[in-house]
């Protein structure tokens, strides 16, 4: 790096990076750059504190709404043979309750906590792509509210939150209810992935100088694992959703047994997402617990490394559990045993965390403040839920417990204990950080006891009623089977718990305020989110030398406020964030990040409108929204990304001079694209799995089935060659760009585009010419699903190529300023590789084995 051979500016022995006094106007310039929009421009806000609070508030709104649905269900089940709510509404209620809690509350709530807390905890000015998180938020909020309102006109999905076909296929669910789930939730998953990319890149690249991986707070570890799990888990359900929607809309039989499909394919895809989902929800909450307990007992987390390892291990092992939702499907016992053993294995890291928390409590001086109460409640409920979790991992026991109220009890113990209680603890714990004012201790204590007693009273009896023979998802049950008393207890408990939620809501409404600034550290915590904050986050970015900097360096808060650490002002007059290396957190460059704008808001409206109008088959309206979304995204990218080198390298203090522009693996844009390609690659793996699974269940004789044949192999050679040539052409374009030949570069890009489209087009043509049709049999459907997916990529490449060429003609791409080109090339090469792999799958896979 630049700079004379002075002592390492990151070492604790070096002098503070910036001297006093600070130049006049530095703070004002910083404030001006980070000013948040007011009045009717408020929706354009992108500051992570505001987006985080909006995000969390919306998630909590959905929590309350879905909770009301749960109360309605409990009212119906209070008495046997009750007629309060008819079966059709009841089926919508439990489907919507589950879906909203999972997709619109749990994941967004923890993502919101990440968006809100991570920059402060890592002492970053903001996340690397503020408009992306704002976009994710608006798409989620608009789409979620419209999705929820479907319950008011009877159009809510009614096939269960797990959406098992064939019940959710067009034949048994002809209305739009199932489409609301598939399209409405499908695109909210996209918003979750956007958030995950943001969090991964943010945690790896935006930490304060000196905050090595070893010093990173546990919450950041948890969010990193959480986001990485989203990257690998959500693609499965997105792919499943695409398949089911293709089946519903066009009759491609992926799940229709009579035409070669298999309902179990959906279950594999869904639970490959669905089980990790539980840990996706739990891990960030565990991370919050690991942050709150040390502050509450004023002691460092015992076994920091063990906990970090436990988070990593859980993240991995949770991908080996999915069949544990399918124990009753008749899969061979040995297969079930693999998953049973993996389920046992995943309980070890969880045990480590529980004992690490107990050990931390033992070493400190516990104070029974409201957050601590919720933590203790969490430990009680979660440990109980964890133990029943081990029980349902026992295959023969699960054959009895599966799909009964025992499982309802288990999952609510795990999710309410494992996520809602930590979240409430977090709200009570971090509320002062947001507004400088805590929530009420009295109300909080009352709320805790109501919730704790109510939750146990609601769900403990369900263990019993389940084993006494009450299946899940029943809108009524007969009298005289001994179920009456347990159900009545559950209903009473639900009302008590609801009162607790009401108290929390009242407390938040009465006492929660957001101020632009924060001062004070009421719990005397040790981590950086308790530094004094403004809209710009910390005044200067601290040099981190330990895990709990505020405990180890009591003067740090004052030094940061005075601007004596890194980047005390703004170097360019715009919003900047300090980008550091992923392991050692050494400063690499200063990234300009975009401020408020309408483009991403319009893009969110367009995206939500597009999917929702597709649901109700307003094709023209959908086209309008789609155009709005694409146009807005392009405008957002055009004005907000790849701004080029705006000025000479900037001095951030400590003798560090950082460039204000970076390309390649140093840049956050490159990292974001790599993460996106991991998502994409996982989807493609699901596509390949689909093909292989259907081949497996159909047998070689029916793959392809009689009367269907692939084109001869030579017919596939030409498309493959064209596609490969497209990859070569884009590499050539890269060389041309390096030599500064912009026009030649754009021509090469256009040529590459033509080659790719021609390659994919000829392949499709060959398949159609061979008489292959997707509707007739799962074989055709699988082949055309592959074609569909390549087509989606071709469309993306088309837009990207034209965008790149336009940028080039506008003089915004050159040998130095080439981030746009690099990102496009990365995607392009992936698309080429994927197209070739897809062709191999189609043309070689069944034949190659013969």
């Amino acid at each position, binding site marked *: 790096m630049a700079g004379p051979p002075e002592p390492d500016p990151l070492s604790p022995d070096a002098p503070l990076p910036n001297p006093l006094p600070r130049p006049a106007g530095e703070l004002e310039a910083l404030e001006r750059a980070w000013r948040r929009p007011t009045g009717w421009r408020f929706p354009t806000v992108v500051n992570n504190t505001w987006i985080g609070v909006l995000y969390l508030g919306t998630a909590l709104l959905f929590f309350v709404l879905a909770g009301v649905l749960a109360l309605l269900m409990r009212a119906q089940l209070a008495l046997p043979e009750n007629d309060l709510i*008819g*079966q*059709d509404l009841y*089926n919508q209620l439990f489907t919507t309750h589950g879906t909203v809690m999972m997709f619109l509350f749990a994941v967004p709530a923890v993502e919101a906590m990440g968006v809100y807390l991570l920059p402060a905890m890592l002492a970053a000015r903001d996340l690397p792509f503020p408009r992306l998180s704002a976009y994710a938020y608006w798409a989620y909020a608009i789409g979620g509210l419209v999705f929820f309102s479907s319950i008011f006109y009877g159009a809510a999905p009614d*096939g*269960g939150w797990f959406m*098992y076909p*064939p*019940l959710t296929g067009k034949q*048994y669910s002809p209305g739009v209810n199932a489409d609301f789930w598939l399209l409405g939730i499908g695109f909210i998953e996209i918003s979750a992935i956007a958030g995950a990319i943001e969090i991964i890149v943010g945690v790896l690249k935006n930490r304060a100088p000196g905050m090595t991986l070893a010093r990173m707070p546990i919450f950041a570890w948890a969010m990193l694992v959480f986001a990485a799990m989203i990257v690998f888990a959500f693609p499965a359900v997105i792919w499943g959703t695409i398949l089911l929607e293709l089946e519903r809309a066009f009759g491609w039989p992926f799940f229709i*047994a*009579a035409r070669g*499909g298999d*309902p*179990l394919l959906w279950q594999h895809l869904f639970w490959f997402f669905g089980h990790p989902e539980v840990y996706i929800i739990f891990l960030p909450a565990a991370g919050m617990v690991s942050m709150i307990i040390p502050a509450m007992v004023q002691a460092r987390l*015992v*076994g920091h490394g063990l906990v970090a390892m436990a988070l990593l291990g859980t993240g991995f092992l949770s991908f080996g559990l999915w069949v544990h939702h399918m124990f*009753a*499907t*008749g899969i061979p*016992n040995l297969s*079930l045993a693999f998953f049973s053993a993996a389920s*046992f294995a995943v*309980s*070890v890291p969880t*045990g*480590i965390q*529980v*004992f690490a928390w*107990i*050990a*931390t409590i*033992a*070493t400190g001086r516990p104070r029974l403040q409201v957050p601590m109460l919720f933590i*203790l409640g969490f*430990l*009680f409920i979660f*440990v109980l839920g964890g*133990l*029943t979790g*081990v*029980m349902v991992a*026992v295959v*023969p*026991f*699960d*054959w*009895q417990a*599966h*799909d*009964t109220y025992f499982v309802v009890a288990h999952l609510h113990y795990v999710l309410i204990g494992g996520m809602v209680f930590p979240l409430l603890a977090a709200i009570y714990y971090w509320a002062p950080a947001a507004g400088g004012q805590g929530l009420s201790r009295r109300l909080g204590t009352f709320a805790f006891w109501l919730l704790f007693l109510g939750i146990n009273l609601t769900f403990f009896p369900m263990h019993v009623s389940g*084993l*006494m*023979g009450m*299946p899940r*998802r*029943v*809108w009524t049950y*007969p009298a005289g*089977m001994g179920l009456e008393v347990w159900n009545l207890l559950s209903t009473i408990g639900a009302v008590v718990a609801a009162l607790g939620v009401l108290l929390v809501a009242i407390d938040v409404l009465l006492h929660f305020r957001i101020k632009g600034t924060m001062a004070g550290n009421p719990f005397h915590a040790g981590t950086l989110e308790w530094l004094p904050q403004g809209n710009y986050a910390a005044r200067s970015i601290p040099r981190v030398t330990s895990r709990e900097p505020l405990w180890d360096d009591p003067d740090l808060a004052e030094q940061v406020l005075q601007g004596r650490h890194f980047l005390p002002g703004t170097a360019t007059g715009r919003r900047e964030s300090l980008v550091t290396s992923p392991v050692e957190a050494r400063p690499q460059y200063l990234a300009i990040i975009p401020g408020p704008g309408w483009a991403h808001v319009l893009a969110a409206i367009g995206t939500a409108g597009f999917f929702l109008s597709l649901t109700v088959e307003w094709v023209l309206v959908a086209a309008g929204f789609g155009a709005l979304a694409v146009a807005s995204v392009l405008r957002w990218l055009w004005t907000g990304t790849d701004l080029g080198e705006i000025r000479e390298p900037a001095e951030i203090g400590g003798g560090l001079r950082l460039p204000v522009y970076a390309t390649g693996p140093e840049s956050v844009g490159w990292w974001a694209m790599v993460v996106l390609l991991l998502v994409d690659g996982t989807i493609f793996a699901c596509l390949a799995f689909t093909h292989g699974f259907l081949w497996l269940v159909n047998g070689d004789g029916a793959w392809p089935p009689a009367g269907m044949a692939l084109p001869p192999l030579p017919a596939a050679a030409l498309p493959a060659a064209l596609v490969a040539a497209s990859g070569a052409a884009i590499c050539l374009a890269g060389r041309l760009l390096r030599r500064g030949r912009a026009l030649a570069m754009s021509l090469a890009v256009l040529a590459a585009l033509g080659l790719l489209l021609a390659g994919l087009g000829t392949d499709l043509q060959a398949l159609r010419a061979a008489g292959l049709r997707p509707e007739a049999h799962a074989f055709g459907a699988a082949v055309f699903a592959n074609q569909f997916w390549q087509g989606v990529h071709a469309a993306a490449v088309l837009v990207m190529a034209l965008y790149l060429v336009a940028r080039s003609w506008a003089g915004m791409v050159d040998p130095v300023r080439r981030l746009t080109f690099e990102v496009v090339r990365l995607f392009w090469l992936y698309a080429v590789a994927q197209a070739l792999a897809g062709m191999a799958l189609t043309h070689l896979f069944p034949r190659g084995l013969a």
Partner: protein
Amino acid sequence: MQHSVFSPMGPEAARIAELAWLLFLGGGAIFLLVMLALLLALGGGEGVRRRLGARRAILAGGVAFPVAVLSALLLHVLGVAAALGAGGREPALRIEVTGRQYWWEVRYPAQGITTANEIRVPVGRRIELLLDSGDVIHSFWVPALHGKRDMIPGRVTSLRFSLDRPGVLRGQCAEFCGTQHALMAMLVIAEEESAFAAWVARHKVPVAAPADPTLALGWQAFGRAGCGACHAIHGTPWAGRSGPDLTLLGERRSLAAGTLDNHQATLAGWIAGPQEIKPGNAMPAFNTVLDGKELRALAAWLESLR
């Protein structure tokens, strides 16, 4: 009527119930231990807290203990699963059960019997159920018999069990299968070998046109209302197959898959207005076709089928 995991009627369910008790007792003990540790960490003596706060405590409580307990449990559970899965003796009776929205079709291929919503089995014989589905996914669950097994279109799953003593066991669909998932129950009736044989034999007796004028009117109404388009009665010209087989209907204990007790009055109510009782099921209302007298006669005749 047995409908609980904890009142097993056969060796398979008993083995699972034993396992369940083991899990509850062990799990309860572990829960209490952890809570005790938490309480000690909060307010225990200095020495206890120091020991709980060491890294060694994490390794002991969070690693060594679970690994030991879970390893033992894994081996034990695999033993149980092996015993349940191995199948033991070859089954002496095969019954095919097809799940349909929202009832169960039951066939005894060797005996040539088709019935619905009630499975009669002889005590002591080893029985295999072959399960499949006619529409969406259902799950066969009779808690006092065995664990549940899904019924998946395009696949055949199986469940092997035997019963120790006579009794009536209730079962219910356990996989959400649509509007009336809640009203899709069934009975398993375990009886002595001789009673079972007699039941099989009764199936072979042809049904004669009744002499009693009321029953004769019922017989006639059955035809005139078109019931035979969907329902079959063994030994009569009616052989519809899209609804449940009604042979020996009078002997069944329940109507509409466990929704109503079966007798003349409920039969009449069901025939005339099934969509109020179980909305969304496939049986149309015949109140527009049958007058009151015909309805009563029809119910009486159906009840007389025994």
